[in-house]
Each structure stands twice: as structure tokens, then as C-alpha cells.
């Protein structure tokens, strides 16, 4: 497993305490998991995703990541309606291990853009990990 200083935590996205990230892409927001999350889980073998059209509130569980040793729930960093899922992950869940910030999981139409500002910056997220 990686040391904290080895983690890749890019700026320009918002992080949650549950290790998801959110990136604003025009009208929509893409959601994935952090380098820390994929590293902790190990080889990811299955991604359970919601259906397009499902609506969730911030903090709701929207799916699960299954690795060879554990299962972890995914929680919404912001409220909104699912407008797309990354179907590449159905056949290649390992993309999350290879490129956690490229391998987005769902794309939502946020119901409140203001929620983005409540997320952690990369520096604040690293502070969280340092405890």
C-alpha cells in the first residue's frame, strides 16, 4: 500500500470524507473514488452502479465497489440525478485501480451547485488522511 506522500491527489476536484471525488464538467458533475480509496481496496473486480435517472441526496449510497478482499459502499458527494454511468467499468473495473481520476463512475446533474464548495480541497483531504 502507498505511503501518504505517494498518493496522487490532484487539485481542481472536490473530495469527501468517504474518499469519493467530484469534478464539475460543464452542466454535470462526474464522480469517482480517490487514489487512497483504490489503493486501500486493492484489485477491484466489480462495480455496482445505479440506473440512469436515479436521484440521490448528498451522502446517499449510490453503488458499491467490490475488490478481492472487501466491499465498499459509494456515497454521493453532491445531490443530483444520474445522467450517465461509465459502462467501461462493467467489463474493466480495474480501470479504477489504474487511473482513479480518469475512471469516473457516474455523472450527475447536480440539484445544488453550492454543495461543491462544501467538499474538501486536495490539501484538506490530505489533512484528513493524515488524521
Amino acid at each position, binding site marked *: 500500500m502507498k505511503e501518504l506522500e505517494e498518493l496522487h491527489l490532484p487539485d481542481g476536484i472536490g473530495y469527501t470524507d468517504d474518499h469519493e471525488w467530484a469534478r464539475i464538467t460543464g452542466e454535470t458533475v462526474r464522480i469517482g473514488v480517490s487514489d487512497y480509496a483504490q489503493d486501500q481496496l486493492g484489485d477491484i473486480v466489480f462495480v455496482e452502479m445505479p440506473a440512469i435517472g436515479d436521484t440521490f441526496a448528498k451522502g446517499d449510497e449510490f453503488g458499491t465497489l*467490490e*475488490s478481492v478482499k*472487501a*466491499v465498499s459502499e459509494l456515497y454521493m458527494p453532491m445531490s443530483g440525478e444520474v445522467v450517465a454511468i461509465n459502462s467501461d467499468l462493467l467489463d474493466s473495473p480495474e480501470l479504477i485501480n489504474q487511473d482513479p481520476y480518469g475512471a469516473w463512475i457516474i455523472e450527475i446533474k447536480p440539484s445544488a451547485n453550492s454543495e461543491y464548495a462544501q467538499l474538501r480541497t486536495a490539501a484538506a483531504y490530505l489533512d484528513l488522511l493524515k488524521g
Partner: protein
Amino acid sequence: MRYLPHTPEEIAAMLATVGLTTLEDLFAAVPTDCRMTDPWPLPAAKSEWELNDHLRHLAGTMGVNADTKVLVGAGSYHHHIPETVRSLAGRSEFLTAYTPYQPEMAQGTLQGIFEYQTLTARLLGMDVVNASMYDGASALAEALLMGLRIAKKKTKVAVSKAIHPHYRAVVRAYLQPTAYEVVELDYQENGRTDLSGVDLSDMAAVALQSPNFFGVIEDLESASATIHAAGCLMIACFTEPLAYGLLKNPGQCGADIVCGEGQSFGIARSFGGPGLGMFGCREPFTRNLPGRLVGETKDLEGRRGYVLTLATREQHIRREKATSNICSNQGICAMTAGMYMASLGGTGIRQLARLNYDKTQYLKDALVGAGARIPFASPVFNEFVVEFSQDFRPARERLLAKNIVAGLELDALYPQLAGRYLFCVTETIGKDTMDTIAAEVRA
């Protein structure tokens, strides 16, 4: 054999470590009214020969002996158990092995369970079958919970009233403490479930049994169309898997989840247990399947091997989010059913199912010829409901005196069917027995 592994010295050492003197001190936190104070009222120990005598005497007091002809099914079926099954299942490698907690050490057990899963999947027409559940009733309750997990936002399930009453009682026991609601569907005059009376669109899943408790073969294909059109999952349940030797299997009829009792396959009735919960589903639902699952794989050298797979569904990994809190299986019963299916083969199961069906038709015709009425007109497999023109109890008593148990009185299970009887005819019932029954009905 001693079942307590600790010696008095070890117990004393452990007590000393926690700072106590006696075992009584250790249990002091348990309220006295919750503790047993009187010793067990057990008789003195017997010698082996005395014990044998005692058991022989008890066996002699049973109403049913080895010569009794039993025409009662209702969820527990009197089938011949081939000697191959008895002798293989009695081997200590299978019989004394517990559920594998260090599974990959027990390749033989895993292979046996994998073969059971494969044969059961073929019989039921399912993509995946688990390593088994406790019995048919708990399997149905688990199937309904699985349906609720898959449907996510729905909170109701529907079960047919033609499902075994004991199964429905177990379903109620499982779901009663939850926020989920169980709706029961009436049966029609022909003995099949009526899907028209209830708005199904609220239901996560709809469960039917076929053949149902009355022996009636449900029209699973048209039920599947109705259930799926309403956006629900279809659960097909059974008490008599032998029927699928003859009938189109539930998977082909469109069922999403299939579950039921496997006792018919080489397992003695044994006063009602242990049973075998058979459980399978279509592939897209695999990650919601309860119970253990054995998979086939290759080792580092490319040799075939068996593993417990998809274990992340189970409670030792997923904790409270597990698909079930059953993390065991009916190992020896599943193994036995696998041996039974392998012993008979596809052709044997088909022939045996045909024999059950034909014999049942013979008794049905004989009883109608003797003046009885068949209240449910739909086709049946090896059970059927009979209505007699006069009180059947005297004839049933005369038949009991001839060591024939003629049918099950339905009064207690279905008060609206009071006075009717449920008959079951398996391969073990001869023509002479059926003729005797018809003659007593006529008399």
C-alpha cells in the same frame, strides 16, 4: 467422548487470570431467573444393548413402519432411495465433514458441492445455484428478501396462497420484524393462483409454487408474462423437484429466482428434517444471491480446482450488508441430492417423474370411478385434492388398519377446504394399494 475441550487445570488458570475463583463467579452477571438451577432430570446411562432395546421399542410404537404405504406428501415425499446414494452418502469423507471453513483444503467436498450446484442448475433451468440453504421454507423467505434487495425501493412482496402453508408461516416469521409487507394471492377454482385481484406493480417480487400445495401445476409461462409486465421479479418455488423431470423447468418458463425443498432427492423423510433448500437465480442477480457458492478454477499449474467464490456477499466480509445471515449450507444433504441426481441421470429422473405422474393419474381415475370428485380441474403431478361424496374418515380408518395412510385431511391447513384430502402417489405405491383404496371408498 468429551465435548468440553478444557481441563480443570486450564479452567482454573483462566479463572485466575481474570481474577475469579469459581465458574459460578464467572456467570454471576447472568440474572438468577435466567439460569438453570435444577440438574437435568435424566435417567441413568444405559449400556449399548439396553439402548438398542430401548430404541427398538420406541420404533415399534410408531404409527408408520417400513411396510406402511404412505400416500401423504404435502412437502415431504416418500421416494425410494437407491443403494448407491445410501452407500456413497454414508462414507465418512462426506458424512463427518463439516461446512468447510478452510474450504480449499477440502477439494473433494467442494467438487461434490460444485457438482450438486451444476446438476440442480440444469434441473431448474437456472444460471447459478448456490451450495444450498436450510430447507425449502427458509429458501423462499431468502428469495423474497433477495427480490426486495434487487428491487431496492419497493417494500411489498406477493406470495400465492397455494404455496405450502408452513413456507408462508416461515416467510411471515422472517419478514414480520421488517418494514416489508407480504400480500397473499388467492387461488382460483381450478386450483391455480389468481394474479388478477391485486395491483402487482407495487410488488418487488411475486412467488408461486409449482406444482403447488394442491399438486396443481401452475401456468408459470403466462404468470411470468403477467408478473414481468407489472415490473416485478418472478420467484418459482417448489416442494417436489422431481416434477421438473417431466415439466418444463421454471427457468424456461421465465422465473428469475427458483427455490424449494430438495428432500425428494435421496434424503429420508426423518420426521420432517433435515431438509435441503435448493436455490438458484439468473446470472444478472448473482451478486444478490444468498448463501455459499462453489466455483471451478485452475491452480498455478493449470490443474482444475474448486474454491468458494463471490464470498464478498457473505456476512464474514460484508457484515450487516451481507445478502444473508446464513453463512453455512446443508452440506451432506446437498451432497446426497447430488449423488441422487447423478445416480438417476437425466433419463432416470424423467422416467421416475413419468412413473409418479402415471400412478397418480391411475389413483385419481380410480377414486373418480369410486364416486369421488376432484375439485381442482387443473393438471397435477404426483399430488391432488379429493372431495368424497360422504365422510371419508371411516374408510380412512379401515385403510389405516390395512397399513395404508390414505391422504392428508386439509381441515387444519385450509379451513375452507375442510373435508377434502390431499393424496400423494410416488413410485413406492403399487396398483394393489390404489385398488384397495378405491374399493374402500366404494364400500
